[in-house]
Structure formats: C-alpha cells, structure tokens
C-alpha cells in the first residue's frame, strides 16, 4: 500500500515537472482542429451576451469573427470556425491555461499582475470603473461610499481597488454580474461597481433604464485586451495583426458604431483620445 502510494506521488511529480514539454503552439492546435475556442461572457452587454433572439452575440465576439478569424484563416490556409465557451472573472485564466479555450474575448482588463500568467493582445477598448446606483441615491462616487454596502464581481480589478481605496465600504462579492445586479435591484447592496461600459450596458438592458444612474469619475483605468497563453508569439502576432488591420481599415470603427453608436445596444461615444490611442497602436507594416 505504501509502495503504491509512493509510486503514485512520484508519478504525479514527474508529470507536473515535465509539463512544459507538453505545450503546443496555438497555431498548430488550430491547424489540427480547425476551430478557435474563445472564452466569452453571457451576461455582459454589449460585449458578449445572449440577446432577445437567444443568439450569443456582442462587440467582442464580432471583433473576433470579423477581424481575427480571417487573419488566422489566411495564415493557416484553411477556414477556421469559431466556438464559444462561457467564461467569468474566476474561470477565465484557468480555462486558458488548461487549453480549454485559446483566447479570452470578453471584458478583461490588461494589468501587469495578470501579465505574469497570460499574455494580452493590443488594447481594444478603454473604460474605467464607476458605480451603478438607483436614481436619486446619495452615492456620487468613490468618496461617498464609506460604510455603504457595495456589490462587485469576485476577482475583478474593481473589487481589488475598492478594498484598498475605500476600506470602510462593505464589499459583497458575487460570482457573476446577474447576481450582483439582482442584489442591487432588491436593496441587498446600495451600489454595484464595475467598468463604466458594463454598467451602461446593464442600465440599457434593464426593464426601466431611467431608474438607474451610472455615477462617479473613473476611479481606475481599464484597458481591455484579449488574453492568450504565454510563450505563444505566433498566435499573438496573428491576433494583433487582425486587430491592427481592423483599426487601419475602419472595420473596427464600423463594428464599434454598430454596438456603441447612437443606434447601438449601448450608446457610448468613442472619445477622440481613445480613437487616437487605438490608431497609434497600429504599427507600420
């Protein structure tokens, strides 16, 4: 019995130690399977959500479909299909590192700490953290939340920053956005913090949007990038070229207009400095 246990433990140790030799570049994986698996959200309009017709659509999903898939297809000389898997702040990095998905295309902020575990594509959206409150609430921003009950998503950058900058606020962390929003609707919490654009999306999709207000200055800088595995430069290059081509050709702005324009799901005009920043990310060929 003891001998078997020892052998099993040694076996596990060996397996994990030689793990690095099992890494397979994503482009090779795509070549074999012909399918790009992405991790994306189901409840974060308009980036990735299930719409009224039960379709899983969104700005991030469309960017991948129209800007990145064609580049991958051309590089591998075969059409690449897209498959979507649901990801949340807690599951997205494990999904990526376990090879369950190849790309995280949702509302993930590019941070230095996260770059220890994953690589990011170019920034494809810029926003900041704010608060969603019931209209008429006394909460106006990060200075006025002392002692209040605030909901956040577990594992989000917002929760982390709030902990440091407003330690007296009572933070309640939920696994996902719908649960956190429900807590706000029912009064379990007095405000919900998330990236401004996501709050705007929630407000636009609420049964009575006029009951809600997105308040506060951006108390954090949230550049969204698409996450992919480390040490995978060829795949990252392909994704970045896809994004750069889309920005240079105007496809990005066309897709942006569709989801964030005045007729879009969530009107959110592109600030001139953000547009400039996006354009300056496009390096010469």
């Amino acid at each position, binding site marked *: 019995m003891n001998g078997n246990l020892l052998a099993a433990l040694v076996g596990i140790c060996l397996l994990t130690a030689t793990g690095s030799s099992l*890494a397979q570049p994503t482009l090779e994986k795509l070549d074999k399977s012909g399918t790009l698996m992405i991790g994306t959200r189901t409840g974060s309009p308009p980036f990735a959500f299930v719409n009224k017709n039960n379709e899983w659509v969104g700005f991030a999903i469309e960017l991948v479909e129209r800007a990145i898939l064609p580049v991958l297809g051309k590089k591998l000389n075969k059409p690449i299909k897209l498959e979507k898997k649901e990801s949340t702040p807690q599951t997205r990095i494990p999904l990526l*590192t376990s090879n369950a998905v190849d790309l995280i295309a949702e509302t993930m902020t590019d941070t230095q700490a996260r770059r220890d575990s994953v690589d990011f594509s170019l920034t494809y959206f810029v926003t900041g953290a704010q608060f969603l409150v019931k209209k008429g609430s006394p909460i106006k921003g990060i200075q006025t939340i002392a002692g209040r009950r605030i909901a956040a998503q577990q594992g989000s950058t917002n929760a982390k920053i709030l902990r440091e900058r407003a330690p007296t606020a009572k933070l309640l962390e939920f696994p996902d956005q719908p649960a956190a929003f429900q807590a706000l609707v029912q009064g379990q919490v007095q405000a919900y913090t998330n990236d401004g654009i996501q709050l705007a999306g929630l407000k636009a999709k609420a049964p009575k949007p006029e009951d809600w207000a997105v308040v506060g200055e951006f108390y954090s800088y949230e550049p969204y990038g698409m996450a992919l595995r480390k040490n995978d430069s060829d795949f990252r290059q392909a994704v970045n070229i896809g994004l750069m081509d889309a920005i240079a050709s105007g496809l990005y702005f066309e897709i942006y207009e569709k989801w964030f324009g005045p007729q879009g799901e969530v009107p959110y005009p592109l600030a001139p400095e953000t547009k400039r920043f996006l354009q300056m990310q496009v390096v010469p060929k």
Partner: protein
Amino acid sequence: MTYQFTWSILWSGQSGAWLFHGLVTTLELSILGWLLAAFLGILAGALRTTPLAPLKWLATGYVEFFRNVPLLVWMFLCYFGVPPLLPEAMQEWLFEHGAEFSAGVVALGVYHGARFSEVIRSGIQAIPKTQLEAGISTGLTLAQTYRLIILPVAMRLIVPPATNETLNLLKNSSVALTIGVAELTFQTRQIETYTAKAFEALTAGTLIYLSLCLVLSAVMSRVERRVAIPGMIARSQTGDL
C-alpha cells in the same frame, strides 16, 4: 503547459489571512446550519413515525419539499426570494447585518434538516415497536416515550449515516459563495483570481476541507464505538436489548 508553481503565495501577502477567515466562516456556517438541521431533522423524523396523521403529513411535506430541490436553489430563494416579501424596515436591518450569512445558514439548515430526518426516521424504525408499547404502558405520554426512550436509542444507532450527512453539510457550505458569503471556497477562488495561481490555491482549499472532514470522521468513529449498543451492532450471540 508552462506553469510556474509558486507555493509561497499561500502564506505571503493576504492569502494566509483570507484562508483563515474563510475557514472560520465555513465553520460558523456549518455549525449553525448543523444545529438548525439537527433540530428540524429530529422533529421531522420523529413526527413521521408517529401515528398522528396531521403531524405526519406536515413532516412528510417538509421532507419531500426541501430535499427534492437543489441546495443552490434554496440559497438563492433565501437570499433573493425571501427579503422582498418582508417589511421594508426588516429588510434594511437584515441587509445591514449579514443577510447573506443568515440566508446561507437557513438554506443549509432546512435542506439538511430534511435529509437528517430520513436518517433519524430509519433509526427510529429500527427500534422494535415493543419499546414504544412498553413506554406507553408505564404511563409515559407519547412525547415522553419518544424523548426518553426512543430517540436516545435511535441516536446511537444512526451515528454512521449521521456522520455522513454532517460531512455533506460541511462540504455543502461552499454553495454559499454564490450569494456572496466569504467562506473557504470563496477565499480559495479569491486567491486564485488575485494571484492567477489556480493549482496552489485550490490545493490549499482541498487540503483544508480534507483535514476538517478527516478529523470529524475520526472523532465520530470513536463516538460510534463508545455509544454502540451491545447486541445490536456487534454480532454477539447474547442479543439483549
């Protein structure tokens, strides 16, 4: 898979404190939930074996209703479904004083109470009816007979399945993370998202749960041996009740 193992994240920075607070919350949740479940379980289990029809129906209704719906649904119901039905002032008080923890305790208690009641009912039914008749014939009321004769024996008979249910309760306390209770599993996921070291964080959680449950099982197996009723559990020829 180019994964770097960094076990030091478990005790450096805030991770150690988080794990500790998570452990304390899990224990609080489990103990309070267990007390509620034990109370409801004994009540319902005993009532289901009595000949009193309305009480029997009530207990059966409770058991069938609560054990046939997933615990997760009860958690959501207690936290999101119940407060809107309460008066405003009470809602505000609840939310200010850890509504999610109370909802977790209540959900755990009623769900496991239904499961406990079945375990206790099987223990009671293993006792020969002659015991009940003997008790009544000495002048005790039905309630007294149950309290003084039937239940004490039943408790000693059901130690193994009761231990099983208690371990289940301890592990099911992790479901409370879906309503925002910062218990142990919540904290391991917290560490995982802040450090992106999934393997280390989840190993910590696994080891802590494993130790808790193994300690509990060890204690209960000693209890089992000490309260074993001679002739009923041990296969001895002199079966004397």
